[in-house]
């Protein structure tokens, strides 16, 4: 069984640009979660999608947005990039049932802002 896959592995952008990160969940998983892991700050919850709908959102500005497609894959978009957006962005998926289900993580996209 293929795990959660994220692309690209690394992404280098400059301030003010826009970034798109992609995530493919495990087959059969309908929930997708996005997290930001900046150095020394642990994982910060960004977004939770389930069945194509946004279920919950963390304390991030509106320039962080995303969507979930009919095949349950997901995209995270970050507009007007700032230096502090440099981080590892992790995607996780789970079966339906929300957070009573364990989350399965991809290896992340490392976003570097120059």
């Amino acid at each position, binding site marked *: 069984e293929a795990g959660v896959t994220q692309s690209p592995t690394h992404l280098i952008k400059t301030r003010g640009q826009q970034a798109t990160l992609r995530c493919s969940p495990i087959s059969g998983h309908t929930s997708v979660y996005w997290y930001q892991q900046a150095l020394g700050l642990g994982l910060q919850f960004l977004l939770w999608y389930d069945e194509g709908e946004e279920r919950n959102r963390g304390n991030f500005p509106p320039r962080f947005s995303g969507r979930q497609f009919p095949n349950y894959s997901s995209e995270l978009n970050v507009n007007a990039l700032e230096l502090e957006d440099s981080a590892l962005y992790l995607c996780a998926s789970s079966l339906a049932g929300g957070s009573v289900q364990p*989350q399965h*993580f991809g*290896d992340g996209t490392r976003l570097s802002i120059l």
Partner: protein
Amino acid sequence: SQQGEEDPQALSIQEGENATMNCSYKTSINNLQWYRQNSGRGLVHLILIRSNEREKHSGRLRVTLDTSKKSSSLLITASRAADTASYFCATVAGGYQKVTFGIGTKLQVIP
């Protein structure tokens, strides 16, 4: 804001010893989960303990939950070098089942 706070932030032990990591949280939870993260990789789910459970085992892992003290502990027995990783607790709370991760404990097991 962080819900779970792991303690210690870093731990270094010899192979074969036991490792104990603690997690404290502030509000009522639905369940608490422990994850492991190897350097540069995603997180791997280890164990989920529900708010009405007090102890759970999985192989060399033992998790306890004390809801009156709002704390949990993860014990790894007979540690191995391969256990070297960061360990995170994640609390699940609220009607929207929000998952909140702590900063993690960095465990180093010396062969």
